[in-house]
């Protein structure tokens, strides 16, 4: 029993209920004021009819309610603004909002959409006590234009129940002696300012907006420690999150408040409503410990810094970013990760910013590598970065991360041919990947590449350019290339292949024979040796119908060329072209 009592005293839970969250999130996404200042509803298709799921307070005042068919609502309120509900988007936004509550305590639990609990027993003093927590919360939520009810109590269930049902009553009349209303003075300035944008930066309202117009946008109540029973007693049983049938039955039996229910003999209650009901009741009152299932802190791989005075040059900015890179590298190392894409935001004094991104072929967290790549990007970028009135803040974010395991060195060489698998080749590959990153950052990703073989006999397509950036598996074994050299060491394929074969004037001894002489770029060449023809057809499946006879020819000086004759023999439209040059 003593242990329980300790628990009860030790726990303090902040419960927050956001009644209009879906509508407010919609307004935030859609922009504009209509959803918050005029009757507005969200509807969804249920049972083949459009029914309201949320109605704002103006709509509720006009007599609209969730579950009502949209057509009926439109008839009641002409010109009603309505939009389709977006539960998926809401869930994502609510998730982000919940992340923001981590500022009040490390354990944040979510009890359904719009209901959040935070354990603040050990962290309330950071805000100047529980009233301070509520004051901070009020300022932030008002700034974000979220209507909310909050309560601090000993148990999650009680905090949420009081927040949802017991705050407005207390505000109006102060009937309940066990509770103390918090008077929260409106803050002159919002929670923005300073380097930490609240709510993880995602849901920060546009600057320049004041607090919302309604006075009842935020209400809060602190239930003193040990006074949970007294706070819960006047509340309806529905607050306990029971199934509707149980609530209906309790109401039928006349047990409308929690207090009335608790006064009944416990054995009879358990027998009538089951153990689950009794457990809910106990959890609310603190007789049974109800744990929060905490949400995880988001993995945020970013670092931020300000400078004492604005810097005017990229060099100085990069120097400022040096610390950020080290910070980020530390975070990444802690989680065995490496960055695949980094974004460096440079914030100018006049609220504009410049962002520069770099990609890495392999996960990276070496500060020098990262800085070097950014320097390259700035130096070799298409146009110089304008510092304006100077940069005064920097943010470095890892936009894509990948696991960066400790490199395993193979003890045994897998096979002689698979040379790129062995240990040395692994190092080479890593170094090559780094090099490719740097070159790609400066020259463009398409300009730095490996070649990979392609299974075709058409010479132009036999080698495929594969961008080197991120190409860890592109490097192919030598055996994958078709043998383009005779056993005696004579190459069959040229060293240079012309992208656009240029026409030749050719003199041949026989119409279907090798050329005896040809003119290329106004210079004549006398053919001394020739080998061929090697007849290659276009790929029919690609619609190429050409037929080419390739010859390897050598002139008197020893220049070796690859030339081809295209077209049907005797058809009269034969052309000779220079395909490439041999070494």
């Amino acid at each position, binding site marked *: 029993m003593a242990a329980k009592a300790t628990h009860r005293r030790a726990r303090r839970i902040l419960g927050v209920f956001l009644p209009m969250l879906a509508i407010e999130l919609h307004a935030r996404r859609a922009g504009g004021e209509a959803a918050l200042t005029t009757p507005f509803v969200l509807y969804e298709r249920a049972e083949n009819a459009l029914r309201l799921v949320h109605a704002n307070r103006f709509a509720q005042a006009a007599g609209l309610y969730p579950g009502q068919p949209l057509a009926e609502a439109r008839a009641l309120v002409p010109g009603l603004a309505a939009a389709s509900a977006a539960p998926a988007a809401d869930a994502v936004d609510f998730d982000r909002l919940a992340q923001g509550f981590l500022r009040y305590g490390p354990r944040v639990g979510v009890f359904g959409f719009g209901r959040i609990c935070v354990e603040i027993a050990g962290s309330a003093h950071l805000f100047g006590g529980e009233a301070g927590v509520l004051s901070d919360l009020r300022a932030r939520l008002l700034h974000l234009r979220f209507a909310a009810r909050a309560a601090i109590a000993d148990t999650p269930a009680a905090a949420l129940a009081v927040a949802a049902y017991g705050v407005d009553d207390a505000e109006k009349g102060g009937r309940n002696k066990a509770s103390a209303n918090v008077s929260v003075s409106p803050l002159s300035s919002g929670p923005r300012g300073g380097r930490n944008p609240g709510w993880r930066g995602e849901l920060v309202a546009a600057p320049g907006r004041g607090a919302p117009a309604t006075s009842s946008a935020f209400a809060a109540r602190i239930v003193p420690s040990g006074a949970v029973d007294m706070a819960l007693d006047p509340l309806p049983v529905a607050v306990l999150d029971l199934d509707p049938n149980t609530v209906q039955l309790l109401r039928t039996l006349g047990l409308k408040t929690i207090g009335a229910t608790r006064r009944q003999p416990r054995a009879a209650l358990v027998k009538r409503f089951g153990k689950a009901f009794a457990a809910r009741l106990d959890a609310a009152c603190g007789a049974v410990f109800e744990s929060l299932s905490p949400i995880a802190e988001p993995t945020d791989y970013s670092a931020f810094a300000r400078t004492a005075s604005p810097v005017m040059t990229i060099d100085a900015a990069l120097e400022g970013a040096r610390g950020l890179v080290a910070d980020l590298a530390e975070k990444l190392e802690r989680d065995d990760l490496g960055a695949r894409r980094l974004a460096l935001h440079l914030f100018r004094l006049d609220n504009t910013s410049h962002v520069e991104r770099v990609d890495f072929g392999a996960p990276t967290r070496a500060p020098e590598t990262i800085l070097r790549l950014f320097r390259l990007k700035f130096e070799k970028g298409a146009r110089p970065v304008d510092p304006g009135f100077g940069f005064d803040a920097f943010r470095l974010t890892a936009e894509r991360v990948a696991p960066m395991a400790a490199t395993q060195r193979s003890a045994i060489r897998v096979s002689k041919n698979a*040379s790129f698998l062995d240990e040395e080749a692994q*190092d*080479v590959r890593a*170094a090559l990947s*780094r*090099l*490719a990153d*740097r*070159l790609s950052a*400066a*020259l463009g990703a398409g*300009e*730095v*590449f*490996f*070649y990979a*073989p392609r299974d075709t006999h058409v010479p132009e397509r036999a*080698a495929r350019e594969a961008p080197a950036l991120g190409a860890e598996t592109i490097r192919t*074994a*030598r055996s994958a*290339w*078709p043998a*383009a*050299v005779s056993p*005696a*060491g*004579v*190459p069959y*394929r*040229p*060293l*240079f*292949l012309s*992208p656009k074969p*240029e026409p*030749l*004037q*050719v*003199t*041949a001894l026989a119409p279907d024979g090798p050329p005896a*002489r040809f003119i290329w*770029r*106004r*210079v*004549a060449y006398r053919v001394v*040796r020739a*080998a061929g023809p090697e007849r290659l057809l276009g790929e029919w499946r690609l619609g190429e119908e050409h037929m080419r006879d390739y010859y*390897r*020819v*050598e*002139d008197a*000086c*020893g220049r*070796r060329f690859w030339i081809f004759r295209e077209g049907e023999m005797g058809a009269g439209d034969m052309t*000779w072209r*220079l395909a*490439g*040059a*041999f*070494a």
Partner: protein
Amino acid sequence: MTDKDAYGRGRARRVAISKLKAQIARLEKRPPLLAPASRRDACDDAVQDPAQEPAAYWAPAFGARGALHEVRFAGLEEGAVPDHRAAAAAFGFALALSSAGARGSQAYVFIAKAHEAAGEGAFYPPGLLGLGVDPGAALYVRTRSDAEALWAAEEALRAPLHDGVGGDRNLSVILLLRATGPQVDLTATRRLHLAAGASGGQCVIARGRARDASSCAPYRWVAGPAPSNPLTDEIHGLGRPAWTVALEKGGAIRPPAVIEASTDGFILRSEAARPSFAPEGVKLAPAFAMGSV
């Protein structure tokens, strides 16, 4: 001023100049140039005893690592403008240079300017196989300008892709610049040479027409095509790749020689001859033209 004074001053000047030359040779990590008198002797020795191994014939230049090699395209006649059609020969010889001194694995970085691919064309990987290069072990870089090409080469040389001179892993960075502007000058080549020296990698600039032909490369070659030797099994066909090569700087002065690819490596052909890049003469209108321009 007496004759003796003049003699003394002239001698002092010669001594100072020879000291400076020795210093430059030390900086460039090569033996000091021979005196003009002894050059002729070296030349005669070479003719009498043609070596079959290119590495021995051009020691220590052929295949030297940790250094910058410059391979000039041969001109139509000696001392003339380099001929752009010698690009394939020069590049082929650059590959020979890179594979010569290499033991263990060999990686390549090939750099060329994008707009120079017209005409004879760009690197063709299946063709590299013919010269013993693994096309998959190479990184290809296309640049827009000389400056970018030089920068990329330096980056590649400074990457830890090799174990230094004599190591198991080797890197050759080969730039193919068919025409170079003023950026490829003493300073740029100096930087490349130092980068190669610092890392033990090898850098080869195959270079055609140049605005500024000066270069800090300790080894300068001139390479042009050479008629191939017909093989017994391909009587009418072509032989193995062969080039006429002369070492202009960075070693004992030798007459130009013909180097030929063999099934394992490269050999020197015995009939070392002066390169004869005679112009083809007058253009002939074909008597029987089958093609059209």
